[in-house]
């Protein structure tokens, strides 16, 4: 988790809701007077709803700090501020909005607790779900073997979901809280046997079901007792609705997204011929239709040769330049087509990863290849140091979990009719030999069309910036944050894209 030092300026927030308005630039002065623990986007089902900042404000007593939790809307207009007390090791890891309430996920390093706090739009705390955990974000063991997405997941108008690790390497917890119904529960998932790696991933939900993909690599050399599962929990009480294996005879499917509509659940996953899902090379994609009890109704599989290979020839799942396709996102669009975002990568001689171009593949309603497009970018690197441990794919998975790939995030339009994939392009600085941001790129799919745009990072606004970050923003935009050490300022600017 990045810690950045920014503003301490006392901002008197206008908490009236602005129907119209935008603040395309936000400047925070007084850097380093106060340590801002976290700053980030508030999202709801892939759509940016606003931004939060969490910073130390005052000392309440010897052991307690007063923090300010400030919220801004998607246009950086201030929404309000809330005082929160806690130890000096408190951090805000993530925030989300479910259409009614805000949820904030705090980590207290003193208490070893994760807390999900839900506030309504009046700033009143509605519910809190605290869990004691031995999860330590800085522990190297957890770094490789207990990877969870720090982002909160959201049920539209139905509460918030989080994953945290069961103590002593026995599985994980599904944590849930809803502010409106005040429901909260922590449900343990214990495979009942030892494992090398376990990874829970939120894949989809509605008001009655929460779907989690579970990938396990067993302890044996060939991953015995491992496999892939789709776990379903009831949001009311956390009860397990089903837990079904998505693997077949000699074929293994790791679910990556799911949609619930009526009586059916549609699952999309990556196909493997090895049970070592997280370390093996995926060989294709599969589309599975289930009923609400987890019974498979229909299954369609397409190898990479039938999909990606139709765009560019593959040899043993590698492109001609020997790079692998890393599948970041597979989205099913309202027009019936399926859109895949791929980042090319290969192991580098230095033990890290070499990151290549972005590729978009569109499949038709019957999952057959329709069109593809490659977006050129400078070769980047990721140095996760795990390539030798678990192979290229394991390294790429870890790099993704630690935001080291050039892909940044995916974002849907408000009505889900479009999906945009964002990435950065880095360039190596001639003298210092380090990578710096060169440009921000976005690829968009809307109504059958693929468009892309790149914005150079170097501009008159950030010429003298000490550091630059990128945050997701409302559709068609990204937010550039520039830190100026000399001026003790953090400037945030929206940049409009042209695709």
């Amino acid at each position: 988790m990045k810690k950045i030092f920014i503003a301490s300026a006392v901002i008197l927030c206008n908490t009236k809701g602005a129907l119209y308005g935008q603040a395309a630039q936000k400047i925070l002065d007084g850097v380093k007077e106060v340590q801002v623990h976290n700053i980030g986007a508030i999202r709801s089902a892939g759509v940016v709803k606003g931004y939060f900042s969490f910073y130390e404000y005052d000392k309440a007593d010897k052991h307690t700090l007063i923090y300010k939790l400030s919220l801004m809307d998607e246009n950086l207009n201030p929404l309000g501020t809330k005082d929160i007390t806690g130890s000096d090791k408190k951090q805000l890891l993530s925030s989300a909005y479910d259409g009614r309430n805000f949820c904030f996920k705090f980590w207290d390093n003193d208490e070893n607790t994760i807390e999900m706090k839900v506030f309504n739009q009046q700033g009143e705390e509605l519910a809190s779900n605290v869990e004691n955990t031995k999860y330590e974000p800085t522990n190297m063991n957890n770094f490789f073997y207990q990877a969870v997405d720090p982002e909160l997941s959201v049920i539209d108008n139905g509460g918030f979901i989080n994953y945290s690790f069961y103590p002593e390497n026995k599985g994980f917890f599904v944590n849930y809280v809803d502010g409106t119904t005040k429901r909260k529960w922590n449900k343990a998932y214990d495979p009942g046997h030892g494992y090398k790696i376990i990874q829970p991933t939120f894949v989809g939900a509605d008001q009655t079901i929460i779907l989690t993909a579970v990938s396990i690599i067993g302890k044996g050399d060939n991953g015995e007792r491992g496999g892939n599962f789709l776990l379903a929990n009831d949001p009311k009480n956390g009860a397990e609705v089903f837990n079904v294996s998505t693997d077949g005879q000699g074929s293994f499917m790791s679910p990556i997204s799911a949609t619930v509509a009526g009586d059916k659940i549609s699952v999309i996953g990556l196909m493997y011929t090895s049970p070592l899902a997280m370390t093996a090379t995926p060989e294709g994609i599969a589309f599975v239709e289930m009923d609400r009890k987890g019974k498979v109704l229909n299954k369609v599989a397409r190898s990479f040769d039938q999909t990606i290979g139709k765009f560019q020839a593959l040899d043993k799942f590698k492109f001609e330049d020997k790079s692998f396709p890393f599948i970041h996102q597979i989205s099913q669009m309202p027009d019936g087509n399926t859109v895949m975002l791929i980042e090319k990568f290969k192991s580098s001689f230095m033990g890290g990863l070499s990151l290549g171009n972005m590729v978009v593949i569109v499949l038709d309603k019957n999952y057959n290849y329709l069109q593809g497009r490659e977006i050129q970018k400078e070769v980047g690197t990721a140095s996760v140091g795990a390539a030798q441990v678990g192979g290229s794919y394991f390294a790429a998975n870890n790099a993704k979990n630690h935001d080291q790939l050039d892909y940044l995030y995916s974002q849907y339009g408000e009505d889900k009719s479009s999906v945009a994939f964002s990435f950065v392009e880095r360039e190596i600085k001639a003298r210092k030999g380090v990578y710096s941001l060169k440009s921000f790129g976005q690829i968009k799919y809307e109504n059958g069309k693929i468009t892309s745009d790149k914005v150079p990072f170097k501009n008159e606004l950030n010429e003298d910036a000490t550091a630059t970050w990128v945050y997701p923003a409302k559709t068609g935009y990204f937010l550039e944050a520039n830190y100026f050490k000399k001026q003790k300022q953090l400037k945030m600017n929206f940049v409009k894209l042209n695709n």
Partner: protein
Amino acid sequence: LHEKFLSDFILYRFFQTQTYAQQGGGFNYLPSSESGRTYGKLTDFQMIYCGQSFNPNSCLRAFVALLVFVLLLPCLTLAQPKSLLKSKLTRDIYGYDGLDQYKRFLDSSLKESVRDKDKNIRKIYREIVSARHEGFLEELADSSFLFDSEVSAYLNKIFQHVVKSNQLNQYPFHFFVSRTSLSNAYCTEDGTIVCNLGLLSLLETESQIALVFSHEIAHYLLKHPAQSLTSVLEKYQSDEFISELKSIKREKYNTRSKLETVALQNAFNVRRHNRAQETAADSLGIILYLKTGYSTTSIPRVFDLLDESQEPAVFNTTLRAFLEKENIATNQKWFEAGKTMTFGKPVSQEITESLATHPDCKKRKLYAINYLRNTAVAGQDFKFAGEEMIALIKKKALDDQILFAQHNKNMSLCLYQAIQGDALYSNDIFISTILFGALVSIADAQKNHILFSVIDKAYQTEDTKDEYAKLLKMLETVSLSQIISMADSYYQKNKTFIMPEQRVTSNLDKLKQL
């Protein structure tokens, strides 16, 4: 003079008090006399012309000096460097000839005003006022003010009339016309009074403009600008305030929240002080106005107009109507207001009112009506221009506001003003040309990913009818191809009204390249 003003001032304040009482407890008060409202003639005559003041006692000397200057002019012209000569010949309506003289005046005025101040605040007072002077002089040098022979001269005439009618010529007033579109006027501690062009778009009659000038002159006569700054500085330098800060600093915990409380309390006090000053300036302003010979019937309307101006929904056309008129295809999403999200309780009405700088316009109107019940005078609404002339002046003022927005590279404001202007003056060559140029500039900026360097970065309103907010929302939402298509459609429909100059041809070329 001040004694005379004071008697009227006390009377007016009495009316205000009664109005409060009337509102609060139903007490009905009707004034019975107008005593004590005649002023003695002033002998210390002073002429104020174009922002430069001359004392008549030195007029003869000035005339001799002018004669010498005219005789020597050919020699001086020959002696001037070519560049300077060129700049003199091409001096536009935005250049201020008396800049050096005005700077000297500000310096001496500052020196004089610092002398009266408490020793503790002299340094900081000098620094603050000096910085403000510097900023103002920069604006004067940067084409932010208008010195033309029509709009500026007309407003200047009204201002001088208010001054002369009240025999205030001995005061060192400097009157300027700012090109800003904000409907406002203001005065500073040295007697500089500024009227924004935006005020001309808001007000309807010459008499209303005179009332606003009377109000600003009243601020100066009551020494409000200097008092405001002095009182704040005295408060910050007081032993009581410093010891309060020191005691907070000594504490270990909750220091920031305590400091914040002190700062907020102080802000409340300052704003309360400001509101009291505004009420006082209203009082004296009306007394000054009554001497001008303008009609009193339009006074209450000024407060209605000021009230409306606080809600920026004043417009001549809607964005949608404009786009439909120009046959530009629209999308409902462009105009939809965003879904409101909040976090925390809304700021209470009490706090909002406590932080307001001006009293409520409705109350101000009520005070004025009550006072005018027995003091109303029949007069004129126009003295220096007829309704036709004022319409022409308003058009020129609008054109200049549009040019000023363009000069400041605020293309969203420029476009908005041009669209509103287009509704009033259809097929106007100036407006059509600027409007097309603004659309091309916005498209060009969007293509280069610098849209927010040419449109307003921060504009917020709760008013769902605010057409400027809708325009910004549209510019934020439309794609590059849509804005290019808009510019193209506009060009095709209006090309006969777009100036065929190099600047416009460039815009057309730029559009083709986009």
